[in-house]
């Protein structure tokens, strides 16, 4: 049996987990192709017009998988990864949305609710649906979940050590990259790591000799410590992580500037925005929002990143010079 996993949204955070899980249960795992113009276009065509770009991309990937004659497309319903904190409503309604868009797709969708206490989503109770639907035994499922968890924790450990997710997912010998200035990149994994949608942003940085730090590289406790500053956390798990990471970046001297990469139509980010813009200014930390959408054209991204980082370099080296001068 072939299980298809769309290369979009949480793929970038959980693929090692999912791949190990299904393969340990004896299934073949197929992913959709890398995001491309045709995947994006078809997603834009089929999805609701006003929905955010990542959801459109996801829709395109679902159709791409249908062409690969998979038996099931795995579309989990992420509900919560922490008590009292949810995922964006679009994640919570994702299987409903896909079912609504295409007639007769219900039987092709493998879905279940994920309600977890942490980002470790290996809790058994979430997967009992598989026992009937995939005909696996409880014991096998438990073993597979354990294997998947181990694999995922390994992936997260490397990620936290500074290897970016694309390196870890696509290369056997992942590399770390350095630079003469460091940018804190605030953005969800599917915006940061989807090379097509973000015009290969990470490589743009590399060519400009810029080191990038993202939220997925941060230790959980650092994020949580920052979040304690807020009387009320935001409702969305990953938005909170971005919020905590951003405040850490604002305070840290080794971060020379912050870029917020956000997709057109992202609701949680619109609430995050005033906090980042207002407080980065208070912290005197250079800040820029980079908005990506379905209009593909990479020159504006490069131009904006160049301009922003040029200013940072000028500021940084001017400051160093002054210090030297004084000495």
């Amino acid at each position: 049996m072939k299980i298809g996993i769309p290369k979009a949204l949480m793929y970038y955070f959980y693929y090692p987990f999912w791949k190990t899980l299904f393969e340990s249960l004896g299934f073949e795992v197929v992913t959709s192709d890398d995001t491309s113009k045709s995947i994006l276009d078809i997603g834009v065509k089929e999805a609701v017009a006003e929905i955010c770009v990542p959801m459109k991309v996801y829709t395109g990937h679902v159709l791409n998988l249908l062409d690969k004659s998979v038996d099931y497309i795995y579309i989990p319903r992420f509900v919560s990864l922490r008590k009292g904190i949810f995922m964006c409503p679009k994640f919570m309604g994702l299987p409903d949305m896909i079912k609504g868009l295409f007639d007769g797709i219900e039987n092709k969708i493998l879905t279940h609710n994920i309600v977890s206490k942490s980002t470790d989503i290996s809790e058994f109770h979430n997967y009992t649906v598989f026992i009937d639907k995939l005909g696996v035994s409880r014991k096998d499922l438990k073993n597979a979940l354990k294997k998947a968890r181990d694999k995922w924790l390994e992936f997260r450990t490397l990620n936290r050590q500074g290897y970016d997710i694309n390196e870890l997912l696509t290369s056997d010998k992942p590399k770390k990259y350095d630079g003469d200035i460091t940018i804190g990149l605030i953005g969800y994994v599917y915006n940061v790591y989807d090379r097509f949608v973000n015009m290969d942003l990470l490589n743009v940085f590399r060519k400009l000799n810029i080191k990038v730090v993202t939220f997925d590289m941060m230790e959980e406790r650092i994020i949580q410590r920052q979040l304690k500053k807020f009387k009320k956390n935001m409702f969305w798990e990953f938005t909170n992580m971005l919020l905590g990471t951003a405040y850490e970046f604002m305070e840290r001297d080794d971060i020379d500037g912050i870029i917020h990469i956000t997709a057109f139509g992202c609701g949680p980010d619109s609430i995050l925005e005033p906090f980042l813009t207002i407080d980065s200014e208070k912290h005197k930390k250079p800040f820029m929002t980079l908005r990506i959408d379905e209009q593909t054209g990479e020159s504006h991204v490069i131009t904006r990143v160049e301009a922003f980082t040029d200013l940072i370099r000028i500021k940084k080296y001017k400051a160093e010079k002054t210090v030297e001068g004084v000495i």
Partner: protein
Amino acid sequence: MKITFPYMGSPYMYEKLFTLLGHEVITPPKPSQKTVDYGVKYSPEFACFPLKVILGTYLEALELGADTIVTSGGNGPCRAGYYGEAQKKILQNMGYDVEFIIFDEPKRDLKTFLENVKKIKGNNSWRQVIKTVKTVYDMAKSMDKVEKIVECKRAYECNKGEFTKAWHEITEEYRRIESSEDVKKIERKAIERLNSIKICEVPEEEKIRIGIVGEIYVVMEPSINGNIEEVLNAYGAEVERSHYISEWIDFNLIPLPSYKEKEHQILKKGEKYIEIIIGGHAKQSVGAIIDFMERGFDGVVHLKPFGCLPELVSQSVIDKIMREYDYPILSLSVDEQMAIANVLTRIEAFLDVIKQKKHRKRIAR
């Protein structure tokens, strides 16, 4: 403490509550172009429309001298529950020294909740507070009851504008109440008055009934939804909404199961399409569509603020419902760009479809 609050539908419940408790109240002006302009100017570009309008409302109220904003919070995951925090940040950054009293669910932060209650309670006795709350609740119930009559009968008025005029005068009457007894008196008078307006009945089979569903703010606030109820009424269609403030209070604030039954039924009807509550009113919107359909309404208008997180999920499902049941549903995005001419054209076309459908059905019989 000069209190103000968000403007949604009728501002008189809030106004009455705080006035009867002896506070100084700055009732915000009805949202206008100025409100929208203010909101758009100072809100994040991709914030949802209600956040912008409500921020605009606050700015206008602050100009009028308000210094305290009372509003509700929420548990998400819809953005509305975080409006207060975001707006506080924006207003403080603009230099306003304003206090926000945000009522979150007590179980989220009991201490803050009780502090907030104390601020609102002031020197009033608990007896007085309970009496006031009851009066305001009765007023909300009563106003909704009367408004439902208007939404239905206005479709058939012989002289255009009579019902709207009467309704405005009736709301002014409600504004003057002091007690639950006043509410009863005014309601009686109001219904008498509405019944005395001349109506030109149309045959039962030609009557058109439209349900309005969607995100609560854009459904409830006529000044930003293109006055859609009046427009539909003017075209001869009866209207019923999926949201009335008193029903919201029943479901959200009264901890008795019997008060929640209606909403639970609606949610059940939406379950086939949206399995769990995903925030906002997405599941309710879908449930309400099924409900209106089952009750024989001829079509539904679905209102959503541009980019609204939950309503975009319901939007994906609504297209399927239209195909599955061949049921007319008109989805309208509400935002600062909404042009009235566009809305009118779409409503006209929508009603034409419904009329033709009804006509074909009659012939078939």
